[in-house]
C-alpha cells in the first residue's frame, strides 16, 4: 500500500525526495519533475540529477527540502558533461557485449557529486503539483480535458470526497488527476488520523475507477499514478469498455458518478445499467449493439444501487451528442441536458497612447487627444515656415526630446523608464481577451439515472410513514401545509393569472378572427386546471 503521501493530496510544507514537483519557469511554461536526491539513471552530471531549462540548470539537491513557492536561482552546471553521458551509454552497450568498461565505473557513484555553485542568471519557482498545473504541463498522449471543463463536470456530476467515479478512457490522465483530488477521502490504511467529531465516524472512501484500452497509454498512466502516490485512490484497468463493461475483477465499482471521454459513448452506456441491458424489443434500436447478453452470467451492475448516478459524456461533435442522448432516453436516463463551456483568459495591460516612450526611433506615437494632435500640427507648420524664412507664428511648441542618443531597448533606458518615470502607472488600465481562445472543446451531456424503486420498497416505507390525507370538511390546522408561504401562494396565483392572459394572447394572435368562441373555450379550459 502507499506508504508515501501523494503530493497532489498532501503537499506538506516542503518539496521532498522522490515526489513530483512543478518547476515553474514562466506563465504557461512549467516542467513537472520527480525530485531525486540520488541519480539512479546516472545522467552523468557531477551535481547528481539536474533539471535543465531555458532559464538555467537546477540540480535536484538544490530543490529538495525547499519550502514550496521558493524562488530558486540556477546553478552553474557543466552541461558539456551530458555528452559524456551519451558516450557512457554507448559504452554500456559495449559492456554488455563483453568489452571492458571499468574506466566508467567511478563515474557511477554519487560520491563524485560536487557542490553546486549559483549561476549568474536565471531562476525558477518551485511549486507543489496540483491537477491544474499538472494538466497544463503533463506529457500529452491524447487530447486532454482542461480545467474549465473538468471543474464544471466534476461539480455537476457530484464528484465529492467519498464518491466512486468511473472514468473512461483515461487517455493522458488529466481528468484522472482532477477526479482523484475530488473524490479522495482518505486511504484505508491511514484511517482515523484526526481527532474530531466527524472524522471519528466511518467515512466512505472515494475512488477513481479508470479504464483505458490503448496498451501503451494504460501502461504509462499506471506508472504515472504510482509515481504520483495516487495508487490508493486510482484503480486503472486495461479494458475496452464498450465491449467488456466496467466490472473490475468481476466486481462492481459501485459507481456514483461516471465520466465518458470516448469516441462512441453510446456503446458503453448499455453496460451502465442497473438491471442489465434491456431486451431488444425495438428492432431499429441498433444502438444497443454494444452489449451482448448471451454470456449467460447474471448481470452485475457497475453502479451504486442506493444513489442516483450522475453521468457526463464529453464529445466534440454534435452527431455524437445526438446518438448519445437518444440512447440515454431509451435506457431510462433522466434530466438529460447538454452544454458547452467557453473559457476566456483576460489580459490586463496599460495602454499608453500618446505617451512618448522614447523607444524606437522613427515611430511617432499617436496623440492621446486633439490638443496633442493640434500641438504637433502647429509644430510641423512652424518648422515649415521657418524653413521658408518666415517667423513662426503663435506659440512655439518644443518637441519633447528624449535622449535619443542611447538605444531605447537597452537595460539602462528601460530601468530608467520603470524606476524614474514609473511607466507601470502610466496610461489607462485596460483589459482584453487573450489572443488564443479555445472556442470549442467538446459538448458535455449530463444525465441522471435514479434509483430503482420497487413495489416492495414502497410498501415498506408506507408502513413506516402513514399517508395523511385531509378529508373535505376537516378543520384546517395552522402551519400544516408546507411548501408555500402565503406570499408564495399569492405569487403563484398572480403568475397563474398572467399565464392565463398570455395564453389568451397567444391564442388570439394565432387564431383566425372567426374563432372567437374558441378562444373563450380555451380560456375556460385553462381555468378548470386551477384548483
Amino acid at each position, binding site marked *: 500500500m502507499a506508504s508515501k503521501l501523494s503530493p497532489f493530496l498532501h503537499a506538506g510544507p516542503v518539496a521532498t525526495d522522490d515526489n513530483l514537483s512543478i518547476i515553474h519557469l514562466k506563465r504557461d511554461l512549467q516542467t513537472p519533475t520527480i525530485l531525486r536526491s540520488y541519480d539512479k539513471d546516472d545522467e552523468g552530471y557531477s551535481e547528481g540529477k539536474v533539471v535543465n531549462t531555458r532559464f538555467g540548470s537546477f540540480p535536484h539537491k538544490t530543490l529538495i527540502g525547499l519550502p514550496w513557492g521558493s524562488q530558486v536561482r540556477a546553478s552553474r552546471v557543466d552541461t558539456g558533461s551530458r555528452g559524456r553521458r551519451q558516450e557512457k551509454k554507448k559504452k554500456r552497450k559495449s559492456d554488455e557485449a563483453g568489452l571492458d568498461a571499468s574506466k566508467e565505473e567511478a563515474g557511477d557513484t554519487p560520491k563524485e557529486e560536487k557542490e553546486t555553485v549559483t549561476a549568474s542568471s536565471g531562476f525558477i519557482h518551485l511549486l507543489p503539483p496540483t*491537477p491544474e498545473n499538472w494538466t497544463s504541463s503533463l506529457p500529452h498522449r491524447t487530447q486532454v480535458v482542461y480545467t474549465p471543463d473538468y471543474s*464544471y463536470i466534476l461539480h455537476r456530476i*457530484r464528484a465529492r470526497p467519498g464518491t466512486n467515479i468511473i472514468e473512461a478512457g483515461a487517455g493522458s490522465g488529466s481528468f484522472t488527476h482532477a477526479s482523484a483530488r475530488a473524490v479522495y477521502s482518505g486511504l484505508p490504511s491511514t484511517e482515523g488520523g484526526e481527532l474530531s467529531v466527524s472524522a471519528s465516524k466511518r467515512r466512505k472512501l472515494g475512488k477513481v475507477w479508470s479504464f483505458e484500452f490503448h496498451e501503451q497509454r494504460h501502461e504509462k498512466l499506471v506508472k504515472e499514478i504510482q509515481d504520483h502516490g495516487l495508487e490508493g485512490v486510482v484503480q486503472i484497468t486495461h479494458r475496452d469498455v464498450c465491449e467488456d463493461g466496467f466490472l473490475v475483477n468481476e466486481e462492481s465499482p459501485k459507481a456514483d458518478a461516471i465520466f465518458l471521454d470516448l469516441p462512441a459513448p453510446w456503446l458503453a452506456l448499455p453496460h451502465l445499467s442497473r438491471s442489465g441491458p434491456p431486451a431488444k424489443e425495438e428492432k431499429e434500436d441498433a444502438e444497443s449493439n454494444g452489449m451482448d447478453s448471451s454470456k449467460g452470467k447474471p448481470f452485475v451492475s457497475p453502479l451504486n444501487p442506493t444513489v442516483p448516478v450522475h453521468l457526463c459524456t464529453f464529445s466534440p461533435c454534435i452527431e455524437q451528442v445526438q446518438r448519445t442522448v437518444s440512447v440515454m432516453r431509451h435506457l431510462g436516463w433522466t434530466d438529460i441536458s447538454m452544454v458547452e463551456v467557453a473559457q476566456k483568459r483576460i489580459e*490586463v495591460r496599460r495602454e499608453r497612447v500618446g505617451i512618448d516612450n522614447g523607444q524606437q526611433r522613427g515611430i511617432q506615437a499617436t496623440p492621446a487627444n486633439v490638443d496633442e494632435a493640434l500641438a504637433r500640427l502647429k509644430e510641423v507648420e512652424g518648422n515649415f515656415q521657418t524653413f521658408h524664412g518666415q517667423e513662426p507664428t503663435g506659440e512655439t511648441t518644443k518637441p519633447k526630446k528624449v535622449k535619443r542618443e542611447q538605444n531605447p531597448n537597452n537595460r539602462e533606458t528601460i530601468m530608467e523608464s520603470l524606476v524614474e518615470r514609473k511607466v507601470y502607472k502610466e496610461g489607462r488600465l485596460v483589459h482584453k481577451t487573450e489572443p488564443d481562445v479555445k472556442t470549442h472543446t467538446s459538448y458535455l451531456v449530463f444525465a441522471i439515472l435514479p434509483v430503482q424503486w420497487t413495489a416492495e420498497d414502497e410498501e415498506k416505507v408506507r408502513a413506516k410513514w402513514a399517508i395523511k390525507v385531509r378529508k373535505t370538511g376537516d378543520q384546517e390546522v395552522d402551519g400544516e401545509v408546507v411548501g408555500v408561504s402565503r406570499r408564495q401562494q399569492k405569487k403563484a396565483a398572480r403568475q397563474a393569472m398572467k399565464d392565463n392572459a398570455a395564453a389568451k394572447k397567444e391564442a388570439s394572435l394565432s387564431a383566425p378572427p372567426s374563432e372567437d368562441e374558441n378562444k373563450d*373555450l380555451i380560456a375556460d379550459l385553462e381555468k378548470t386546471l386551477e384548483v
Partner: protein
Amino acid sequence: MHSLVQPNEWVVLRLPSDTLKVLQIVPNTIVSLGKYGTFSSNLVLERPYNLTYELLDREAGQKDSGLRIVPASELHADTIAEENAAANPVNDDKVVIGGDGVEFELVAENGEVIMRSNRETIDDSARQTLTMEEIETLKQEGTGAGKDLIAKLMLSHTALDQKTTFSLAKYKLLKTKKYLRRFTILPMDVPMLTYWMMEEKDAAKIFEMRDEMLALVGCWANVHYSVAPNPEASETGGRWLMVDETGGLLVAAMAERMGILYPPQDAPRSLYPTEAQEKEEQALQTSAHSPDGFRTSLASTNTLTLLHNNAQPNLSLLKYFNFAVDTPNPTHPLTAHLHTLSWLQLISPELDTTYSTPPVSHTPEELLAMKSGKRGTYYRKHRRWARTKSIVDSTRNGSFSGLVVASAMDPVSILRHTIPLLAGGAPISIYSPTIEPLTALADFYSTSRRTAFIQAPPAGFEELSSGEKEQWQGDEDFPLNPTLVLGASIQTSRVRNWQVLPGRTHPEMTGRGGAEGYLFTGIKVLPAEGKVEARGKYRKKKAENEDKTATIKTEENGAGPEAKKRRIDADLAEVKAERDTRMEDVSQ
C-alpha cells in the same frame, strides 16, 4: 450521497414550468404546489431523489392528491416517438394522438422538411374542435392530470394547422409545461442551491456566481479533502482561508469539496440536536476541570477559516444544509471544521472583547458548589472563549494552504492582510462579479511594476526582515508587495445550454444577462532575496522556520546586488515584449 429524502431535509421540487420550490420535508404535513394541488409529505419521505411524480386525481371527499412515479420511459415517450417518426418518414402529414391514452404526440414530417418550409399544414384531422358539451364534461372530470385536456385543447385550437411542425412542437412543449401536474424531487446541494439562487431567488446576494465559476474557484484554490493522515504530520493536512460575502454559498461549496458539508450518512440528520446529543455535549463540558482542558472540539486540518466583516458571520444559506452558526449541531462536520473570526480579531485581537477578556476561572471546589445552571453558563462561556482564542491564534500563525475570496471589499485590502498568512505555494482564488477590481489588482502584480520594485525598492524596505517584507503594508506606487504573488491572471467562463431534440438541436435562444463573473488566480511565493526568516509576527513556529531559514541561507550564497540584477534581467525580456506589443498597437 443523497439517496433517500430524509425527515426535515431541505429539498427542491422542480415543476413542469421549470420553476423550483424549495422546502423542508417535515413528516406528517401537507405539501402544497399551489394550483397543481397538495399531497402528504409522507408520500415522498424516505423515497429516492430524482424521481418524477405525478399528482393523481383526488379521490372523492379528499382534499389531497396521491402520487404516482412517472417512469423514465413515459417521460421520454414524446421524444422517442418523434424520433421514430423522423427515422421512418411517412409521406402524409398526420397527427397522432397518444396510442396509450396517456401521452399524445403531434407529429408530422421528418426534420428536414420542418426546417425548410414554413408553410407545412397538418391534416384535417387536427381541425377538430370541441363541442360545448365536451368541454363541460372535461371541466367536471378534471381528469388525467391535464394531459387529456392538453391534447384536446391543442386539437381544438384551429390555428394549429397554420403552424409548421417545428413551431407545433414548441407550442406543445409550452402547453405541456403549463398543465402537467408533475414534479421532480431533487436534493438540495451546492449546484442546486447555486442554480436556484441564480435563477429564482436572489442572484445579487451570491454575486451572480454561476456554477461554472464556483467550480473554477474551488479548483484553482486546490480545495479538497485533506485531513492529515497522522497527527504528527499535521502540516500535511489542508487549511483554507476564506472571505465569503455570499451568505455562505462559497463556504458551502468549499465545504462540499472538502467533505464537511453533509453529516456522515450514519449520523442523525435532524436539524436540532437530539436529547442524547445534548447529554453528550454536557458530559463533555462537565468532564473538563481546568480552563485549558475545555474541549473546543475544533479540527486542526481539513478546515475552513472564514474572515467576516461584522461581529457575526452571515452564513444564512447554510441553513439549507441544516447548519446554523449560532446554534451549531455537534454532529455537523462544519461545527468542528468551520472556524470563523472577524477582521478585528485577526488584525487587532487585543481590541476584541471576546478574545481579550478570558472569563474568570473557578476552582473545582467552587464549581461543585455552583448551581448546575450557573455551572453550565460558566462552561459555555469558557468554551466560547477557548474556541475564539484557539481560532484567532491559529489563524494568526498563518501557513494556510490556500485563499478563497468572494467579497464586495477591495481585494487589495484583503490581500494586504491575508498574503502573509499563506504558506509558500498556496493558491489564491478571488471571484468578482465585475472585472474592474480584479484588473486593478492584476495591475499591481504586473511585470513592469515588479521589476521596478526589485530595481528600486521603497525606502527602508531592504532593511526589513523577510517576515516584515511579507507584512509590509504597501505604499502609493506599490500597494502590495509585487514579489509575493506569482502568475497573477484573470479568467472568465461561461456555460451555454443547448436543446437536444430530434431534428431540433440548437443552443438555447435566451439566457441570463447580468454580471459576467471573473476569477483572479495567483500563487503565493517566497522571493529569494537575502535571507528568509520567520514569517512575520503572525508566525509562532520559530523552530520550524529557523530550519527553513538555514536551508535557504545556504542557497543564498552570493546573493546581494548580483542576485537582484539577475532577476531583473529575466524580467526585462518580458517588459520589453510587453512594451513592444503596445507599440505595435499604437502605431497601427
